[in-house]
């Protein structure tokens, strides 16, 4: 790689704007500027020097802040578009069925909804292009941090104390002038700056006061945090890192926990509580009057069982682990699995009781109870009568080609096809029984099954999650916060003071941010040590303010 030799004799890498040794401007562009470009202390940045190969071009693309900001804005706009209509995972049914989802958008939001869904905006955050944007953000963060962080680090580490007068002159805060006793002024300035907790270094009649350099690494630390965070999110794609299941469990049932092999859960009861005037503090009474019912608690009491380690697959000798009450905001935690209270259904039918009656006399031969979760094939009524359950339709939705249909396996609208056999009707009679409906498909019957009662129970909707990426995500978040505080609440400040042979003193100041505060510090030093007056070479208005005769603080 070629290099540039400065007048001072220092060899700088190609692309350096400001000599890394003495601080003279090197590039023609830099020379034409009135003020030094101090962003990376004038160090050579890869993206500014390598422009030939494809790799260079890609590198330069991602290291450009213009591109970075464009990516941020693109993600911002896309995210906003995704909130216009509910995303597909928030609509009833969760969009598991595409045709149904399409129907939903069209029914509820008309042509606009149809278009929104057809364009894929209803699943925007999961779309390939959105993920690509986020991926590009990640790449950009990696590239920009390497591109600028390394040269900046090198340049700040090797700072020379006695920079060239032209370097000082080209700082934003600058002053020069003759003083009576330059040595005394320098000494007092150093003293005062030390009091302001500056780190002072002196050499050849020049002084460099510096503090808060570490704040300059803030952006790199926070970018690193973001990179780790995004990496953590990516890990979810690896099987086993992320479990997300949901299940319905009825009161009294014991079921294998979905997605968590070896774990079993027993639902000991679901509770749904509401605030009432009686059970709550008086201060709430007005609100309860106005709003009506307000839920206060959803709770599933469970017992957790686990098959011992090394047990044969499918063996059922699970051991009791613990009892727990799962409420909203307080999931059951076990071995990295979290089980949440997410949903519920009250009063689902669990069993139906019928009486076998003679249609004319109304005389009952006995009763049978069908347990919907576990229906039997045949019920012996006694007195020589029996009822066979030929078929069961938990969620009867009508007939199709003469066949009864069930929309779902959930007993929302149970229907049965029974065969009744009595001493009077040894051939058997077939009856189709649904709620408020009885059909006799094979001709007039002598007997009927008349509905007596239904037992109900509540159903809890639970969600099971396991997320092994959490530690990575947390690490990323913590590092981001450290970096962002480091870069925002602290700043890197430097003063250069230099005396020349002819008794003149030059003073210059630079800060990564917060110039008014820097100026206040310099004012204090000037007052104490009698430094020459300085100006903010970037700000004309400040000067006119001063000329109006009013000193700022």
């Amino acid at each position, binding site marked *: 790689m070629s290099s540039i030799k400065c007048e001072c004799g220092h060899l700088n890498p190609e692309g350096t704007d400001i000599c890394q040794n003495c601080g003279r401007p090197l590039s023609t562009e830099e020379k034409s500027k009135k003020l030094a470009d101090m*962003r990376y202390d004038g160090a050579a940045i890869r993206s500014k020097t390598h422009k030939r190969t494809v790799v260079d071009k890609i590198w330069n693309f991602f290291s450009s*802040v*213009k591109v*970075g*900001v464009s990516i*941020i*804005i693109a*993600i*911002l706009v896309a*995210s*906003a578009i*995704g*909130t216009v209509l*509910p995303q597909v*995972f*928030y609509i009833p049914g969760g969009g598991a069925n595409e045709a149904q989802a399409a129907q939903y958008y069209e029914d*509820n939001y008309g042509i606009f909804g149809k278009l929104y869904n057809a364009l894929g905006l209803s699943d925007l955050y999961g779309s390939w292009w959105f993920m690509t944007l986020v991926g590009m953000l990640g790449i950009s963060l990696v590239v920009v941090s390497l591109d600028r962080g390394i040269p900046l680090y090198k340049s700040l580490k090797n700072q020379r104390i006695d920079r060239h007068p032209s370097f000082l002159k080209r700082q934003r805060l600058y002053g020069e002038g003759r003083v009576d006793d330059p040595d005394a002024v320098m000494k007092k300035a150093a003293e005062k700056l030390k009091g302001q907790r500056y780190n002072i270094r002196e050499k050849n009649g020049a002084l460099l006061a510096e503090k808060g350099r570490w704040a300059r690494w803030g952006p790199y630390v926070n970018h690193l945090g973001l990179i780790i965070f995004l990496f953590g999110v990516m890990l979810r794609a690896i099987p086993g890192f992320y479990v*997300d299941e949901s299940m319905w469990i009825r009161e009294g049932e014991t079921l294998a926990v979905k997605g968590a092999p070896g774990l079993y859960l027993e639902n000991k009861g679901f509770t749904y509580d509401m605030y009432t005037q009686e059970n709550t503090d008086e*201060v*709430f009474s007005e*609100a*309860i009057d*106005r*709003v009506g019912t*307000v*839920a*206060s*608690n*959803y709770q599933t009491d469970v017992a957790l069982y686990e098959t011992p380690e090394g047990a044969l697959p499918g063996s059922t000798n699970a051991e009791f682990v613990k009892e727990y009450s799962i409420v*909203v*905001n*307080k*999931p059951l935690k076990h071995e990295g699995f*979290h089980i949440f209270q*997410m949903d519920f259904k009250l009063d689902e039918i669990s069993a139906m009781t019928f009486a076998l009656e003679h249609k004319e006399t109304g005389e009952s031969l006995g009763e049978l109870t069908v347990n919907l979760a576990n229906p039997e094939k045949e019920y012996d009524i006694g007195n020589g009568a029996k009822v066979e359950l030929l078929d069961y339709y938990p969620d009867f939705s009508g007939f199709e080609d003469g066949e009864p249909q069930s929309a779902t396996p959930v007993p929302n609208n149970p229907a049965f096809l029974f065969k009744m056999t009595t001493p009077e009707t040894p051939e058997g009679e077939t009856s189709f029984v649904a709620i408020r409906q009885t059909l006799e498909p094979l001709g007039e019957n002598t007997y009927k099954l008349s509905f007596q009662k239904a037992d109900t129970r509540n159903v809890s909707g639970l*969600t099971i*999650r396991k*997320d092994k990426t959490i530690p990575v*995500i947390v690490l990323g*978040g913590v590092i*981001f*916060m450290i970096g*962002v*505080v480091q870069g*925002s*609440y602290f700043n890197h400040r430097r003063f250069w003071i230099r005396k020349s042979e002819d008794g003149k003193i030059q003073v210059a100041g630079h800060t990564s*941010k*917060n*110039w*008014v505060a820097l100026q206040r510090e310099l004012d204090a030093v000037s007052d104490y040590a009698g430094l020459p007056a300085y100006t*903010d070479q970037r*700000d004309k*208005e*400040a000067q006119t*303010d001063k000329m*109006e005769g*009013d*000193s*700022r*603080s």
Partner: protein
Amino acid sequence: MNLVDLSGNLLFVAFIAYLVGTLLFGGAVKGSKNEASASNKRWGKLGITVTIIGFLAHLGYFITRWMASGHAPVSNMFEFTTAFGMLLVGAAILFYFLYKSPLVGLFALPIAIVILGYAAMFPRDIQPLIPALQSYWLTIHVITAAIGEAILAISAVVGLIYLLKNIDLTKKSKERAWIEFIMYTIVLVLGFIVISVGFRAVGYEATFDYVDKNGAPAEVVYHNPPLFGMNEYSAKTEGTMEPLAEMPPIINAKTLTTFTWSVIAGTLIYFLIRLISRRRIAELVKPLAVKANSKLMDEIGYRSVLIGFPVFTLGALIFAMIWAHEAWSRFWGWDPKEVWALITWLFYAAYLHLRLSRGWEGRKSAWLAVVGFAIIMFNLVAVNLVIAGLHSYA
């Protein structure tokens, strides 16, 4: 006096103090030659003292209400907005002491007053917490996020001052139109307050039956004349006005009606002001801003984003994720409220990068700061009332 009454009275004291504080800061700015000298004058000192008294009373409201209800008063629209107003004043006090500029107070207080007025239009009774909100993470998350937003909002306040000072209002320009538009939106909020108070004073109420979007029958009570009717509405109250149009089920016609009334009232007020003063509102306000030191305003704006951004990140994203992880089983779920917090965050990240690397200072960053505040307000108002996802306040 019980705690709830005490709490209400303290809030009223704060409100009055902010009004008085505005006048005092106005006096400080008016009576001084420029920015820097104003804070030293007696008016400036009085202004900040009264503002602090108001803030302490406001804090008293917050604490006593917390004690009365047993949970942090940030759980519905009234409570959250009121708390946001308080934190905005707190942030203005912080920046007063950092930079001794009475102008920040002069512009922040009226905005806080408008925010409090807006908050007061929502039901003020103390509500018990629904299960999803019963978590201390909610408290930590909402309060931290609101502090972050309040600090970020200061950048919009000084941005507005910067723009009022630096935009030439005598010449027609896009900037002049936009700054007037900002003034107009503030007047719209006043319009909302006026119609709410007005119709409440006459006790207007109209009840309708309608069919909600799930096809179930429901009832709605309007507190202002129903310009728009809900889906398949039928009036239950005699002699109310017939809605001009019926809305499809996904649109909340009641909210739309209130919005329309606010726009009508606000626009009337706006034209009244212009008719009487024969000036743009921006021109009326400009004299208060001309003494500002632009560089100082620019720096305060940048500084407030720098201070607010980490706090906002912590509260609105990190604590939110921890809470979501506990409550809903995932730390991120793309619900609208979450997404708009992300959008706010991305926006301020863009602000910082544009400023740092592309030199967007002064006017450009002042405009960005104003847009940032608009995004925060959008998240508070529109997302809650219109897009209402899982978080649904109000």
